[in-house]
């Protein structure tokens, strides 16, 4: 039976980032088990935004560390991921949201983040292609941006493999072997493996994987849909998002416009079918705010799952109940952008027993038992 130190369940950006950072710290007895193919889950279906403008202070710190790591991704992993710090424009259409943004910016600036507050007039001057009607204010951070999620996922996977990590695709983990309160190994569709540590990075299926080790990961998956248009010339460098307006939009390097929204009526569960209703409501809303889209054709649409946690913040750490069971799940729609910092932190936690670059203790599963929950408001 093959032996590893760490078996990671899930070959998305989270799993491969953890694998890469473990290998970088010198631990090469690491394997990633992916049920389908690399980036087949939420990573390959996400919008690809990378944002530091959060409402919870710890999220700002975590995101700022992530941006530092994205900035050197190409150097670290040897892979161009179409990373672009074109900024992120947060748009508030209600007074309550505008007040919230002003409070958030104050906190973000305390954390050393360079964020501007823009009036509708300033937004119009800078970006004449936005219809600023009903806009109360916007905030902008230039060091935010976006990247190609597929490339980032493959970048981590290839870099981890070069460092000696085994990456098994089309390999489904069926069970986690726990004896006397400690992880002993896993059973998978390609055989049994011994290991000391199992990491649950299963995204939409994190709850099911948690059950295999007898740990309840309080996450629920919800479908989110996106569509993409034909290519346009490069003119939209930033990502625009609104929480009360319920949308996000960005332009890919190739020139396509990618946009999506949340649906409050979505039923829980892993459902990746697409609907006409989404196309209709999304295109109606977006052509009002971005009138140039009226003459732009939609190429295709798809769906992926947010793995929501009760407070819309990730659940990251190592279990105190089952020795050797760690988790990085419940990213609530912002796993891609946090993956570098979370991968680094969890790798440090596994190898060294504590984190060095950014504190992630606030993301431990304990918070739900203790009731120390701060709901992150800046999510679509």
């Amino acid at each position, binding site marked *: 039976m093959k032996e590893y130190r760490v078996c990671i369940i899930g070959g998305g950006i989270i799993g491969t980032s953890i694998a890469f950072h473990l290998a970088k710290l010198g631990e090469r007895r690491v394997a990633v088990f992916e049920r389908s193919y690399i980036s087949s889950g939420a990573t390959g279906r996400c919008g690809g935004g990378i944002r530091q403008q959060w409402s919870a202070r710890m999220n700002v710190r975590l995101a700022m560390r992530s941006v530092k790591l994205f900035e050197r991704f190409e150097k670290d992993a040897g892979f161009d991921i179409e990373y672009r710090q074109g900024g992120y424009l947060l748009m508030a259409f209600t007074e309550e949201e505008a007040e919230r943004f002003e409070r958030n910016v104050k906190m973000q600036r305390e954390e050393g983040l360079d964020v501007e507050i823009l009036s509708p007039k300033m937004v119009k001057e800078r970006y*004449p*292609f936005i219809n600023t009607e009903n806009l109360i204010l916007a905030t902008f951070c230039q060091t935010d941006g976006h990247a190609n999620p597929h490339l980032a996922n493959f970048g981590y996977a290839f870099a981890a493999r070069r460092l000696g990590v085994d990456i098994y695709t089309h390999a489904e983990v069926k069970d986690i072997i726990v004896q006397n309160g400690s992880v002993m190994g896993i059973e998978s569709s390609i055989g049994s493996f011994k290991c000391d540590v199992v990491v649950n990075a299963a995204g939409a299926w994190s709850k099911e994987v948690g059950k295999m080790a007898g740990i309840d990961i309080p996450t629920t998956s919800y479908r989110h849909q996106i569509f993409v248009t034909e290519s346009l*010339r490069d*003119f939209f460098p930033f990502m625009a998002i609104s929480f009360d307006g319920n949308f996000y939009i960005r332009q890919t390097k190739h020139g396509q416009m990618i946009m999506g929204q949340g649906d409050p009526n979505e039923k829980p569960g892993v459902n990746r079918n697409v609907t006409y209703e989404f196309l209709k409501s999304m295109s109606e809303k977006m052509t009002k705010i971005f009138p140039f889209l009226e*003459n732009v*054709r939609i190429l295709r649409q798809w769906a992926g799952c947010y793995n929501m946690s009760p407070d819309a913040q990730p659940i990251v750490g190592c279990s105190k109940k089952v020795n050797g069971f760690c988790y990085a799940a419940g990213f609530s729609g912002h796993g891609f952008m946090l993956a570098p910092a979370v991968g680094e932190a969890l790798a440090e936690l596994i190898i060294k027993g504590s984190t060095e670059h950014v504190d992630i203790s606030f993301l431990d599963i304990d918070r739900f038992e203790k009731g120390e929950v701060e709901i992150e408001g800046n999510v679509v």
Partner: protein
Amino acid sequence: MDRRIKSHPILEFEGEETVTFYFEGTPLRAKPSDTIASALIANGIDIFGWTEKGRARGFFCAIGKCSSCLVVVNGTPNIRACITKVKEGMKVERQIGRGMPLWEEKQ
């Protein structure tokens, strides 16, 4: 230069060239039933645009699928010449590479 088929064993082509449209500023004649593509080809024009690398693009699939015939119509890019009917006074330009979208201030 007239490249229209005058006689065909099965099909009949009706209508006169009563429509005037503009291609890169030059007035051209077209039948009311013409698509932009058929009108351009009838007028001896085969190059509808250029890629970003400078390669010529024109009529290819003829059913609106391949995006080879994209032109700029009245300032709007990415218009498929093969499935868009020509209209009186229409201003058609060659598209170079990806299209630049329109917004109010530019119109």
